[in-house]
């Protein structure tokens, strides 16, 4: 039994090595999927890494490693939400978290807070596709793969979300 252990670890290690290359992006995606709750995002990302390591052989290479892994993070976060570990609303915690960070540039904090407030007011699917395209710099087709929807559906969410977010950002910017 012990003889087989190094082989098992070696199986997952190259994959995890590749995942480490885009760890900051995965962290951003986990934060988004968990409504920007840091503790929950950390748990979700850790569990997603464990799942990826356990299913190292399942990655066939058909899609990119990033979209495959983002799909795992998304499903893990959804399961965590279903378990009802956290019930706080998407927008409330984030606003507080951004405001309470000490020693940050207040103006930039306010801009980020503004984005989060606006994102909280659009549909979850629209929010998701906008994050994947603008934050993660994926194509709409890759975003569709992560979200598990057709490219046409993702494109529709993308255009509607963009219009809604632009309207909200402009309106927030116009306010004193």
């Amino acid at each position: 039994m012990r003889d087989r252990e190094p082989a098992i670890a070696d199986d997952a290690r190259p994959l995890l090595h590749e995942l480490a290359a885009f760890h900051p992006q995965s962290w951003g995606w986990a934060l988004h999927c968990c409504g920007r709750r840091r503790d929950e995002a950390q748990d979700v990302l850790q569990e997603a890494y464990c799942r990826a390591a356990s299913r190292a052989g399942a990655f066939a290479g058909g899609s990119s490693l990033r979209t495959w892994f983002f799909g795992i993070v998304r499903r893990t976060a959804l399961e965590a939400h279903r378990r009802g570990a956290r019930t706080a609303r998407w927008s409330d915690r984030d606003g507080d978290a951004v405001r309470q960070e000490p020693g940050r540039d207040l103006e930039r904090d306010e801009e980020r807070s503004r984005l989060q407030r606006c994102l909280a007011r659009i549909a979850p699917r629209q929010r998701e596709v906008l994050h994947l395209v603008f934050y993660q710099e994926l194509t709409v087709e890759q975003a569709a793969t992560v979200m598990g929807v057709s490219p046409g559906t993702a494109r529709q969410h993308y255009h509607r979300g963009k219009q809604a977010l632009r309207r909200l950002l402009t309106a927030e910017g116009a306010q004193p």
Partner: protein
Amino acid sequence: MTDRDDDALIAEAFARQRAHDASDPPPAAAMLGRAVAAARRRRRRAAIAGAALAAAAAALVAIVVARRAPEPSPGLGAVHRLCDDLERRFARQRETDPWRFAAASDAWSLDGRSYGSPSGPTQ
């Protein structure tokens, strides 16, 4: 405002968010190390569970096969063999410890054959 302006506005807002998030992500090495250890544990547990399942299945199959197979009847021959064996053992004991065997009490017969006749010395 053109579509390109929309994109620029939104992209700028997300870029700020990305820069902020990238400033303090949790340590990748620790998380990935834990993931490797967890994967190893999961596989080991799965292997143990698989072996236990295989053993249980084998035992179940053995029980089913044993129940289905016709039980051989011992027959009178087997009883005679058993008695012969007992006779040999008694004879050996009579040689080593003759005082324990009384002449009459050792004899018995089965199916016309006699056993336990007092051939050993008695006093």
